């Protein structure tokens, strides 16, 4: 079930977005729940009370607030790095600040059904239906984690540390074994001791990758090109 929030101070735009999103999800074949917000402050209240959404369609220019403030609220106050933000805008010039919130996509007004459908198809391609799970055993217990909640794996002698959004754990295994299993699910290995989820890359600094939780992952000398190749493939729709 995909939970989507649409926030735009123009009712007509919200209505149109809702219609297109429903159509697209029907077409793709996923269940969706859409909530409409006509102002940024109502959305903030909703988020503060604990409501979560997978995708936000955010108008950049809102009357009582701006897309930037709300994005800041989502990413920095709520520390939510896994929800995706899609900016909807009448302008096509984008401020540099917006990119710091790692938006998933930009949609220009006026938009049509096709644009919305392509965007949602891309979301499903990258984030799956949100039910892909990773399984590991530690001791007698088996654990299941949603792939979209895993930031990265780090080798720790014979064990592997798994860094998730809200927690950290460990299990017996090897990075190499994990790489083989997860390479088609968006995990790349910039160093023999690390396997990272490309969706949680915040930035690149020289020979280091900074993850959204500010952890630094080194890039091994020979691996830079391999990483670039994989990233390009993700951008090019998997080719």
């Amino acid at each position, binding site marked *: 079930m995909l939970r989507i929030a649409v926030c735009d101070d123009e009712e007509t735009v919200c209505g149109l977005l809702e219609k297109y999103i429903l159509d697209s999800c029907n077409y793709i074949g996923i269940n969706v729940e859409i909530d409409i917000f006509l102002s940024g402050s109502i959305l903030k209240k909703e988020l503060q009370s604990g409501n979560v959404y997978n995708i936000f369609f955010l108008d950049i220019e809102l009357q009582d607030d701006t897309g930037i403030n709300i994005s800041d609220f989502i990413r920095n106050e709520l520390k939510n790095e896994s929800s995706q933000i899609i900016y909807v805008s009448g302008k096509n010039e984008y401020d*540099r600040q917006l990119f710091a919130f790692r938006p998933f996509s930009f949609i220009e007004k006026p938009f049509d059904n096709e644009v919305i459908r392509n965007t949602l198809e891309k979301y499903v391609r990258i984030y799956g239906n949100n039910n892909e799970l990773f399984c590991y055993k530690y001791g007698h217990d088996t654990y299941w984690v949603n792939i979209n909640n895993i930031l990265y794996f780090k080798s720790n002698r014979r064990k592997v540390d798994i860094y998730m959004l809200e927690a950290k754990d460990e299990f017996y295994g090897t990075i190499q074994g994990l790489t083989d299993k997860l390479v088609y699910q968006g995990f790349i290995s910039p160093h023999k001791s690390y396997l990272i989820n490309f969706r949680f*890359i*915040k930035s*690149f600094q020289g020979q280091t990758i900074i993850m959204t939780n500010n952890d630094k992952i080194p890039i091994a000398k020979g691996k830079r090109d391999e990483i*670039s*190749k994989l990233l390009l493939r993700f*951008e*090019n729709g998997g080719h």
Partner: protein
Amino acid sequence: MNKMIIENIIYATTNIFRIYCFYRFAQFWFKKKNFSQGAEYCLYLLYFIINTVCHIAFHNPLINMITNIIPFFLITYLYQSKNYIRIITTLMIYAVCLLTDAVVYSTAQLMKIDSVVITSGIASTIMLLCTELMIERFIQYRKHQKIIFKHILTILVVPLGSIVIGIFTMQPEQFDSEPEVIMTECFILLVMNAMVFVFYDMTGKVYQQQKLRTILENQNKAYANQIKLINQSQSRIKYLKHDLKNHLLKIRTLAQNGECDKILEYTDEAQKYIMIPEKYVESGNNGIDSILNLKLYEADISGVSVKTEISVPTELDISDFDINIILGNLLDNSLNALSECEEKKLYVKIKYDSGAMYIIIKNTFSNASSQKRKKSHDNDEHGLGLLSVENTIKKYSGFSEFSGKDSVYTAKIVLYL
């Protein structure tokens, strides 16, 4: 003058040019200096003095070798480098010297030539200068310029010609009777050859400047076009604003009459009026907008169907100059391939995400033209263009991948900003 003194003068002269050769090589090989230019010149002078004096005083091959290798190794400390690279460079240059000597002397033996030009070491020195230039050019080729084989052939003519002239004119008997004449001839030959290399350098620089000028001219063209588009856009908006009252009145009337279809028609027309058809992209980033609008206009008038997906901030940590080189050259490549094909489609995606800039350009191509990633020695302009693109990509620690499949050529590039 004493024949021995003249021999020594000739040796000293050839030594000057040999050490000039080492100096050139060091300039080229090592990038950064630790000391001033003055200190550098002094040290090379000292090298020359030690080497020449020891040779003249001792005439000992072992002492020659030591006074060649050790001072040069010490001189490498003038430049920023690692120790093992210093050792390798010193040994390499000495090996090249020995090799050229060996080649010259054995060729002379084989061809039974006995001439002062060989025995005095002038021929070896000239060949050493030649070899050094070849090494320089070969390494530079892999970095920046193409080897222009015609030019290489031209510059070989003077050195080889000098050696041949030397062989014919400088006979051993003449050296006994008129050593001063021989000395003068040697000197002139050496200076002539050194000049050839100096001129070759100058033409190389001129060539680089021309290349730079072409790039800047292209960029200016793109900017000029962009300014024109912006001006057009602004004047149309001005007209629209001016007539806004009238337009609103018209729409109001249509709304009052319930003529919704006519309202849609009217607003569509107004929207079309504001949009300049030649303004294909409007990301707000001047560098990208300029070059894309220019190239996409060229694509449009050639009947190419264009699709773009641009999401970049208005400010990026990459200069307009570099954007121009990458996008300009890649799009030129695409446009060339498209001109030779039936179904013309072009797709440009530029996206900025998490500090990386992704560029994906796809175009259809016909198998007849078989657009391949042209290597620099294939074709003048294209080859140089793609070489520039690669150099610029390296500047941002980036990566590029080109592929052609099912009549679609894809160029994928990522830059880390």
